[in-house]
Structure formats: C-alpha cells, structure tokens
C-alpha cells in the first residue's frame, strides 16, 4: 500500500473546514458571459475564462447552492483510459490539468494518484480490456494489462480466487488515475473565479431565455432578467428542462445514479477498483469511507434518489469481490441526476442559437473531466470555435453518424 500510513489517523491530513471563499453578490443586470450551473464544470469554465482569456465580466448562476448537485454526489474517480481517440484526448488533457491543479488553484484538492484497476471477468472482457490498453498506449496514456496475480499485488483485498461465479481474469491498470476531494475542487475553482471578479450567484434559477431572432440575449431568472452576450449551459441532468424552454431538442435522458458510503474504516483499499461485468466500483476516501457506486437506475428520473434493489445488487458484487467488506456497515446512500447520451459521450458545442453554448451529456463520468472541459469550453466561448479536444463532441455527430461509442470504457452501464 503506497498511499496510506498507519501512524496517521484517518482524516488527520485534511485541511481545516473552509471559511468564506467567495462573495455572494447581487446579480448585475448584464454580463458578457452567463454560465448556468455552479457545479464543477460551470466553475471550472469561469476560472479558465478569467485565467486563460482575461474574460472576467462573467456570472455563474446556480439555482440552489454551489456544488450541490452532481459535483457533491459523484464518486470522485479520475482516469483517462478511454477507448477512442476523441475521448482519450479530452480526458487525458483533463488528467494532465489535475496533476497541477492544486498549485493552479492554490487550494488543497487532495488529488491522490492511487491508480485504477478495471477488472475483466470474461473472455470478451479480457479481449476488450487488452484492446483498450493498446489503444491507450497509442494515445500516450499509461496503461497496463495485469494478470490476476499482479492484480493481487496492486490491491491485496481483491478476491482473485478462480472459484468465483465471475472470477477475476485480469485487469487494466492506469497508475496515474486516482481520486480527489470533490467539494474542495468546487470550492477551489469558485475561490479563484471570485478572486478574478466573477460573480457567483446562488439561489438564482433560470426560468427562461431572452432571444432576438436566432440570437440569445440573456436569461430570465428568479432574481430578475440578466442580459448576456453569451450563455453557457452547464446544468447536467437539468439541461433539457432549460433547452425545452427554447424548443431545442437534445439527445440526453436524465437518470438517477446512486452512490453510497460505508462507515469510516482503517485504510484497507489502496487503489480504485472498477468492474463493469459484476458491476461495482470502489475506492476508499481520505477520511476512511468506502465509496461505492455502479450503473444508473434504468428509468428516467429527476428525483435524486433511486431504487433499493439497484444498490442491493451492487453490494452483492462488492462483497463477492472484497470479502473483507462483508461486515462493514453502509452509512448512507444518495443519487445524482445524470444526463446520458445514446453513445455514452458528452455533447459539447454550439447550438442553433447564436451565443448559446451547450455542455451536457457527461452522464456518469463528468467529474474527471472538470478541468479539461472547463479549459476547452472557455476556449470555445472566447473564440467562438470549439477547442480541438471537444470539437468531435458537437450535436452534429448524431446527424453525421460519427458517434463516439464509449459504452465499454464509460465504466458504468447506461
């Protein structure tokens, strides 16, 4: 185990709780750029608009509180071992930014590069995994194929017995992958954006849009109308509620995605383990909780909760893979609302409305993309042209047929 030290009690290395990191200004009547959604993506976009492009007349509108949606509900896994070139480019761009983000933000985000294992449990899993490792290598991403014995060396608590119903036949391993403290990431971006003069306005729900012909001229909110030169949607599961107001159809469906944590435990789990086949993923947070999740609930839902039988199945998989978890207690479970695309890849790009930019469809994997997306989206807003990393992810791919099918590497069944 590389990342744990038994002499330090769990949580001792955590920073003190945050005091006030940003102002709570009244909204101005007009901004150059209005970003809808103060989650990770919205805040990162604001930060990079100021830092990379000097655009500071920006408001980030949030209907509830900052980082209170999927940003505080995800399982914080960061990796870039996706199959296709398009996905590799954006996720690896993001991972490189994660590696220096703490210095960039001047704020601890507890990014821990403890690696990720993606287990294979069938011959088809093995073939797909080896193919993905080779694809990753061609894209300059660290990836290895591990045998069951090597899996056991990286993560001793995984049950590699070949007697299991779905035995571990090997795993892909990305050593640079890891986890970060999601709340601190949101707060770090928010603090930097606020310092740059960007207004973060909470408790401000968008209720409509102002348009002039095919051009967006502003938003209507619960705190009055706000004029905007450009409007950027970073609203994840709520995106289509917004685009419906414009009659704009987006090919995403909102689903509950559940996650759960155990009570605080001694450090037992040195890495991140994901299994598509028996379907669970597990890491151990810095404080000591086991953080677990799996696939979305099958039906559309905005309720931020899911069905119990879904997590019951995940727990069965977790206990089979990690017998040491059998006597751990589940502390709490929750759900986010994730917007899923037919090809399990995001939609980022321009829209038929001039000045309206779309960022949605990240489904179950948006957290890891936070800095890379923010960087690329800020580029698109500043230049009115997509950054090369996000150019393939426009809405037009559903017409051209150039889909980016990441159902295999997305890690989560949709």
């Amino acid at each position, binding site marked *: 185990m590389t990342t744990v030290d038994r002499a330090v009690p769990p949580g001792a290395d955590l920073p003190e709780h945050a005091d006030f990191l940003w102002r709570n200004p009244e909204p101005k009547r007009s901004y150059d750029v209005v970003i809808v959604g103060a989650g990770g993506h919205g805040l990162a976009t604001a930060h990079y608009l100021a830092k990379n492009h000097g655009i500071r007349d920006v408001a980030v509108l949030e209907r509830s509180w900052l980082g209170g949606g999927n940003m505080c509900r995800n399982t914080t896994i960061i990796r870039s071992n996706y199959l296709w070139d398009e996905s590799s480019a954006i996720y690896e761009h993001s991972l490189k930014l994660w590696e220096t983000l703490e210095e960039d933000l001047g704020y601890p985000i507890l990014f821990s590069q403890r690696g990720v294992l993606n287990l294979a449990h069938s011959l088809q899993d093995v073939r797909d995994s080896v193919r993905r490792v080779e694809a990753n290598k061609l894209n300059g991403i660290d990836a290895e194929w591990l045998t069951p014995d090597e899996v056991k060396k990286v993560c001793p608590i995984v049950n590699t017995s070949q007697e299991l119903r779905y035995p571990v036949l090997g795993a892909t391993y990305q050593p640079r992958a890891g986890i970060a403290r999601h709340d601190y990431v949101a707060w770090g971006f928010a603090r930097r954006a606020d310092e740059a003069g960007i207004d973060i306005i909470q408790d401000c729900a968008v209720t409509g849009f102002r348009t002039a012909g095919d051009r967006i001229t502003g938003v209507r909110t619960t705190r009055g109308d706000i004029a905007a030169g450009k409007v950027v949607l970073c609203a994840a599961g709520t995106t289509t509620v917004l685009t419906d107001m414009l009659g704009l159809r987006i090919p995403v469906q909102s689903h509950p995605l559940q996650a759960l944590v155990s009570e605080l435990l001694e450090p037992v789990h040195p890495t991140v383990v994901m299994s598509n086949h028996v379907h669970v993923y597990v890491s151990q947070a810095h404080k000591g909780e086991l953080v677990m999740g799996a696939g979305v609930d099958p*039906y*559309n839902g905005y309720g931020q909760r899911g069905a119990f039988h879904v997590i019951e199945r995940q727990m069965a998989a977790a206990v089979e893979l990690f017998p040491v978890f059998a006597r751990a207690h589940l502390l709490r479970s929750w759900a986010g609302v994730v917007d899923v695309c037919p090809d399990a890849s995001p939609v980022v790009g321009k829209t038929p409305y001039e000045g309206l930019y779309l960022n949605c469809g990240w489904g179950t994997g948006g957290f890891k993309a936070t800095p890379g997306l923010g960087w690329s989206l800020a580029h698109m807003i500043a230049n009115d042209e997509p950054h090369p990393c996000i150019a393939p992810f426009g809405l037009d791919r559903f017409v051209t047929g150039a889909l980016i099918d990441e159902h295999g590497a997305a890690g989560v069944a949709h």
Partner: protein
Amino acid sequence: MQLITCPYCGPREEAEFHYGGQAHVPHPADPGSLSDEEWAHHLFFRDNPRGPFAERWVHALGCRRWFNAVRDTVSYRFHHIYRLDQARPETP
C-alpha cells in the same frame, strides 16, 4: 421496492420489469423520404420531461408483454398504466 401494476398480471415488484423509454414514438410512415437530420431525431432524440412522462415498460420476468405508463419523473409515482392499444389518458 415499488410495485408496478401490470395490466395483465396485476401488481408485481419493480425488479420484474424492464424500462423501454418514451412511448408513442411512431416509426416513420415513409422511411426512405427522411433526411439525415430527421433520421437522427427519430433514432436518438427523445423527450426528457421533469414531471409526467408517457413511457413503455415490459413485464420481462412475468407475462413478457409490453404496456405503457404515465409516470412522474420526480416522484416516480405511476399515474396511469394502460395497454398499447389504448390512448394516453388525460394528464397528469
């Protein structure tokens, strides 16, 4: 676990059912005449409302028959369940 009332079998546990997405999406009358854009919308674009939603379900581990339901996507409550040959009931 939520009970779903199959129109043929009566109330059964949610785990016996599979979800089929938006209901009342007709196959194009003249597929050959569709533009690429129209095909994209037919294949990939579905409503995603916050609130009542007419959708398809199948009683996969029971009678294996498809039916429609109007369900609230926030409360997850089923308002109406009806056979495929019935029209969508009035709101909600």
